[in-house]
């Protein structure tokens, strides 16, 4: 009998020492919450266009080995863009918080987006659909395209001590310090939509979003096939790129993605010019002026235009083409807004990417929920890829934004 207290203490010590092996011990309430959270089925959710909100990606490409110095490779070499296209696959996570594993229901999550835009509204709506399923205390903040304000919002979000911050970095390079700061404050971070520099993913649980490079490689192939079809026997086919706002990953992915893809897929296609409309990147009038100048300069040599946006930019492009009386130019763009889909339906835009705004927000939220539920965390997860043409555009109505 005298030994009994020692046996009990020894047993307790062993159990305590082994507890990390078997996972953190949860209270009965936490266990119940985890059970209820795991029972939540978000696969039934639909986006406004009738598509499955969380459609799985069918992309099964293998991650290539990183070149010793990607910057030394030519910009037409796909591997030059390795640190953007494949950002995150080679990171060493630093001080990554461990999942509480106590269930996603009832968590406090703050989403910080990049700016006000109909796309962003749809994206927040998608995240909210998932947040509502898990009964989150959910808040979305927008810096309205101002990086300085985004830094302030990050500080304010940290002040609120949320269970997680979901962040769309406004600038790929500035994202490194933003992620460092959130990580240092002990708040779990998930980045989504725009790809940060690879170093930023050292401090983030992971990244989800559209595979902009991958989508534009697919788009480039469809565009190239159509250009060849419309210009049989042409020695070279001149094209131009209306770029995204400088700084973010779409700026590179939506111009150098197709350029580096076409360098091998169809070397006959030559880039004549590329530029971002200034001062307003997403303004029809500014884009119209830019493209009108190109049409004057290159005339009939300009056979194709690839736009970073299928709404304002594409409208501006078609205004310029109509003014110049050109109907032979093959235009493709990143999608998929109502204007873009209407242009595809009218036979003006040849193709757009299927970039689900609601799905983007929803995937970030779902990945966070999976982490709260103690599931494995992918360092990167892409949205499903698809190219919309006149053949299947009807399937995507009504548009998300």
């Amino acid at each position: 009998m005298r030994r009994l207290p020692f046996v009990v203490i020894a047993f307790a010590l062993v159990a305590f020492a082994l507890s990390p092996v078997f996972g953190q011990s949860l209270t009965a309430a936490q266990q119940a919450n985890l059970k209820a959270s795991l029972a939540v089925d978000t696969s039934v959710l639909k986006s406004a266009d009738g598509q499955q909100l969380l459609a799985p990606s069918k992309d099964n490409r293998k991650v290539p080995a990183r070149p010793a110095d990607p910057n030394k490779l030519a910009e037409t070499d796909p591997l030059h863009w390795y640190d953007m296209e494949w950002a995150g696959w080679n990171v060493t996570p630093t001080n990554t918080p461990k999942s509480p594993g106590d269930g996603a229901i009832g968590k406090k999550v703050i989403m910080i987006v990049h700016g006000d835009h109909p796309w962003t509204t749809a994206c927040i709506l998608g995240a909210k659909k998932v947040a509502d399923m898990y009964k989150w205390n959910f808040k979305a903040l927008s810096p309205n395209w101002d990086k300085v304000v985004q830094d302030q919002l990050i500080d304010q979000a940290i002040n609120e001590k949320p269970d997680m911050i979901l962040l769309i970095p406004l600038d790929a390079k500035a994202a490194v310090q933003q992620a460092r700061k959130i990580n240092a404050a002990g708040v779990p971070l998930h980045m989504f939509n725009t790809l940060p520099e690879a170093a930023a993913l050292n401090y983030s649980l992971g990244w989800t979003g559209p595979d902009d490079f991958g989508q534009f490689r697919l788009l480039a192939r469809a565009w190239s096939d159509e250009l060849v079809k419309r210009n049989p026997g042409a020695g070279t086919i001149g094209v131009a790129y209306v770029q995204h706002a400088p700084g973010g990953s779409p700026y590179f992915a939506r111009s150098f993605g197709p350029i580096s893809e076409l360098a091998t897929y169809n070397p006959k296609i030559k880039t004549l010019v590329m530029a971002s409309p200034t001062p307003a990147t997403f303004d029809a009038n500014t884009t119209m002026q830019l493209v009108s100048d190109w049409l004057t300069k290159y005339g009939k040599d300009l056979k194709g235009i690839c736009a970073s946006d299928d709404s304002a930019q594409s409208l501006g492009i078609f205004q310029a083409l109509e003014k110049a009386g050109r109907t032979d130019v093959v235009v493709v763009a990143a999608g998929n807004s109502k204007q873009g889909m209407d242009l595809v339906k009218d036979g003006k835009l040849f193709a757009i990417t299927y970039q689900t705004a609601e799905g983007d927000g929803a995937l970030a939220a779902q990945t966070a929920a999976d982490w709260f539920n103690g599931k494995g965390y992918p360092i990167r997860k892409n949205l499903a890829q698809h190219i919309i043409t006149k053949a299947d555009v009807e399937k995507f109505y009504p548009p998300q934004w």
Partner: protein
Amino acid sequence: MRSRGSLLSLGDRYRIYVLFVAVFAFMSLLSPKFFTVYNFTTILNAITMNATVAIGFTVVMICGQLDLSIGTVITFAGVLTMGLQPYLGFAGSIAVAVLGGAIVGLVNGLLVTKTRINSFIVTLGTMTILQGSIYQFSGGNSISVTTDQVFAISDFLGKNLLPLITPRVLITIILVVAVEFILRRTRAGRDFYIVGGNRSTAWLAGINTDRTITAAFVLSGVTAAIGGVVSVLVSTAATLKLGENSLMYVISATIIGGTAMSGGKGGVLRSVAAIMTLEMLYTGIILFGLGNEVKIFFAGLILAYVVLYEAYAVYRHEKTLGQRPWLMKELAARQAAGAGKKR
């Protein structure tokens, strides 16, 4: 005892401080998590760039001029700091960036004073030229430095030296105190007000008006550059839109602070108090859980107030131009005294 009129006048004179206290009290009482050390540190850190920029901008406005190039000078200095760092180190690149800001200010000042072109036109031109130069220099991409050194600098600038006070806040405080002292306590400082109040009178009083205005533009260029430099050191990256939104923000804050667009009136401390007030308001809105649309709505309301108030101030100034109210009061008093004696 003060009359109602003089109290109103006093309230008008110090309206920014009244507004500051009102917003502070309202948000502290009602906005969740507003009244915390972390939140105030965040607000102070957040205002450092625009507050630093507002120092020089206010002096330019006191001189009766406008400097529309401040936003692009911020970006220009940021891009130079990060872009030249691999070649010159931080000491060299920061020096070049601040010198660059001073040169832009000098060019603005000389063009305004020597060619007599309106400062609005001159600085609009400088802004556009600088924008082009920035895109040329950076190749349209943000510039970042991700070495341990820059992370250490960034961490240091955001580290609390005292409660609420980080080095980046301290830099702004030192600049505000120094320029406010010059404006209030030195002859050179008073010259800015005299030149802004009436340039011809200032010239007749023997003040070198051209030099004073040029000095104001140089100061504006330097403070805008310092704002840009500190901002990029904190974020470790220079984005090409860094200073894009600062122009309207700083103009609004400077006018709300009581600096007259017509010149001759105002102060640096008032502009900084206005920036602080705006930031507290915006932070409170976010902490209330309200969206960006509410923030934009309030920003619009404030801008409308600023425009209306400025229009009213000009109207009042024109209406009372040449009037001498104290003389009228004295005459009325004498008449009353004379009437008393007669009785």
